[in-house]
């Protein structure tokens, strides 16, 4: 086995570097929960999970506010996903974390 091959295998099999991060959130509408991301999927993702989690927490604060569009609990299931859309563990506690969780889809 060549060193280059071994390094590629290590990259695939050990720690996988994410391509970026987005904040996932859902808005309560008359039709149900509408999923959106920040930045949008057509934009470049955040290159820092620290920034992404901080933004998620700030969105959570907005959801607790009196804002007519996003506040009063309208924004739910706020968490950070990677560029593939998979949830990312919160670096502060090493666990999956969801701000303002809501399982109700209606």
């Amino acid at each position, binding site marked *: 086995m060549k060193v280059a091959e071994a390094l590629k295998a290590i990259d695939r099999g050990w720690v996988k570097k994410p391509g970026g991060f987005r904040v996932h959130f859902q808005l309560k509408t008359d039709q149900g929960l509408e999923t959106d991301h920040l930045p949008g999927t057509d934009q470049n993702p955040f290159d*820092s*999970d620290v920034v992404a989690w901080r933004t998620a927490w700030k969105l959570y604060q907005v959801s607790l506010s009196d804002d007519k569009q996003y506040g009063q609990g309208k924004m739910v299931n706020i968490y950070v996903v990677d560029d593939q859309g998979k949830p990312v563990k919160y670096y502060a506690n090493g666990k999956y974390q969801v701000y303002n969780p809501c399982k109700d889809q209606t």
Partner: protein
Amino acid sequence: MKETLLEKIDRISLVMTNYSSDLIIGLVMLISGVLAVKYLVRGIRLALERSGLSPQKSEMTCNILMIVLYIFLFVATAGVLGFNSRNLFRFLVIATLLIVVMVMLFKPYLPSLPFKPGQTIKTGSLLGKVEATTFLNTRMRTFDGKTVWIPNSKILNDYLINYHITPSRRIHLDLRIRYDQDLMKAKRVLEEVMILDPRVLTKPRPVVYLTHLREDCIILGGRCWVNNLKYWTTRCDLLEKIKLRFDQEKIAFALPQRYVYMHSEGPYFPEPDAQYLERPDDADETE
């Protein structure tokens, strides 16, 4: 003496009578021309920058245009004042071309500033972004919002770091951990945190060294490379994540410490360790 002064005044009044209208027209033409050139060049510079041309190229284009316009203005003014404008025009064109050729020929031998506007540099104790350069000084904006004019002679005589020559930069993360901690676990965690950050480059790969065995701690050195522009934020984020991850993994950082032994009963003379008193090699020699 009085007559000489009167003669001089007479001569000036004669000149003014004959040429005053031309002088005034020339002066008005020169002032209005300079103002017109200034506003025209400013407008063109804005248009070029809006069109997406780089600031350096738009600056150079505007400077060339300004020189050409000034030549035309001086020649036209000279024509109004009665000078032979054709000869003056030829002289100015030849002089300009000569200067351009001389600059092009001797540019490699002329002392030049090793940076361009828009680049981040550190000279002396000043760190900031270069806004503009002139023959005499360089205008720099520091990251705390101060605008500093630095004499070019001072820059050329001092050390200078240009952060744009190389695209990437190495981050040093030196962590102090206690001797009783799991060294291999700490190395693995540190390497993982660096690899997991998207801004950390894959080539060269992040590495962790044990750099020092100090009297009170082990020093782990994490080394990884990032893009120049992302150096500071990446370093801060990595430090934050390492601190939190080490807490999760229960790896304790070392604090500067010194052990002090208190002996209440008289002066303390430590007895030598028994293993150092026995010298089997010496015993063999005596036998």
